[in-house]
């Protein structure tokens, strides 16, 4: 499970459910304090569920995405 480490706005979602992603690939971009902060995969994995939509305002600690690392 990936939780947001910052509060901000979901700027871009680059993956979809069931997608296989490589290590370090960008999954979601959060706009925070006028900066675009990418959330990257820590390892190769499969996207299980995305809990946010583009434009959503999120808080620190909010659930962003569930990924199963391979």
């Amino acid at each position, binding site marked *: 499970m990936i939780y947001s*480490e910052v*509060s901000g706005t979901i700027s871009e979602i680059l993956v979809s459910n069931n997608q296989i992603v490589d290590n370090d690939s960008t999954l979601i971009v959060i706009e925070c*304090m*006028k*900066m675009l902060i990418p959330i990257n995969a820590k390892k190769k994995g499969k996207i299980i569920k995305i809990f946010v939509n583009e434009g959503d305002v999120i*808080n620190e600690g909010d659930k962003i995405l569930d990924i199963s690392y391979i």
Partner: protein
Amino acid sequence: MSWKKELEEKVKREKLSEKLGGSERVKRQHDSGRYTVRERIHLLTDKNSFQEVGKIAGKAIYDDNNDLIDFKGSNFIFGKAKIDGRTIIVGGDDFTLRGGSADASIKEKHHKCEEMALSLKLPLIRIVEGSGGGGSVKTIETTGRANVPEVEGWDLVVKSMGTIPRVALGLGSVAGLGAAHLASSHYSVMVKDKSAMFVAGPPVVAQIGQNLTKNELGGYKIQLKSGAVDDAVDTEEEAFEAAKKFLSYLPNSINELTEQIKTEDNSNRSAEWLIEAIPKDIKSVYKIRPIIEELVDKGSFFEISKEFGKSVVTGFCRLNGWSIALMASDPYSYGGCWTAETCKKVQKFVDLAETFHLPIIYLVDCPGFQVGLDAEKKGTIKEGVRAMSAIWQTKTPWMSIIIRNCFGVAGAAHKRGSSFITRYAWPSARWGSLPLEGGIEAAYRKDIENSSNPKKELEKINIRLNKLRSPLRTAESFWIEEIIDPRNTRELMCEFADLSAPLRTTGLTHRTMRP
């Protein structure tokens, strides 16, 4: 006629002391994947270097003839030992005896351990498990009365925080006084999913309606994020290595200075990629840790409190072999803005460096304090001015390199008022009272509103102002002393370390009250 018999009796008691809480309790400790306190001290320290103090202090049982039947040592073990050839003091709780609590403790041993480290001016490593010599509910029955709370010996802890390096390793469940010892250190470590720290554990917390496991209440994820503990590792062996590594950057006490060590790394080493390390797109972030690794002596960066106040990375490193305290902004966390947690982290780190006379280098990319409701609720400005005061109160040599943003009051905290610091800026540096992006619409609202094409007008203003904010224009008026080629940064940092070495002074740091 000799004293052989008496010595044999002493050895017998020592052997009984080595049995700790007995084979069943020791097995339980091992079964839960934890070492006993004696094994821990053995693994932490140089071979055969542990000189225990008070090994035969404990509780003895005698028969009617006053002959010894059985003996159990105190559940706190301490003494002198060496790590990497350097003498330290180590003390640890024996969880196999009444869970490390006061019921099986001799409190004077705790005090003597603290006193010895403080008086001999030697680093102290405390291995904490259980209540760390504090009381339990059953204490009332063992003493036959309730006690007025008092933490005897805490004055020694307070004094040693300003005198000698204190490292605390929480290697199991830690509560009450044990938690106080773990938190009262310059560097603390937990073992992931085996350690937990709390003021009071799950059974007590259940009484206020919170049904939580040890991990949910005080596991490493909670305590690292709260800043109560600095680091977490996977094994006890790694915790011992972390303690050794941390101490390797510090003197034995404030009465000494760290020495230069031999390094194979070239102080003039430059790295081509640093010229493009900072993206031109001001909204794009970059990874700060590879930049740090490139600049410091190879492999020497030791990060502290990675999970807390993440907008600033803090840690020790070496430059040309000298021990240096390094801070660097991390744009991945709130764009590098100082949150309330970041401010607390900066306070502690700057105090640590100042206490042990380490020069400080700060790689600056700070767009200001975090803004918004969350920031206000956390009292960011209050923590911010405390962090600023900590910086202003330092006397240790200071170097700042502005690598990107430097805005507002938090940005100004890259230096300590008017006192001299060594300062450089990369060509990617940008500064001001407020980032333009945050204020153009407000400051030029009338111009934009009165324009027939507001979007174009805003763009025009942006282009005009962007030309003005070149760091070279600031250098014209000497507001910044030098714009440097990022590829030459290591050389300048090593030169700073060399020049700072003779400027360091020993002794007690003194400061007035902070806001």
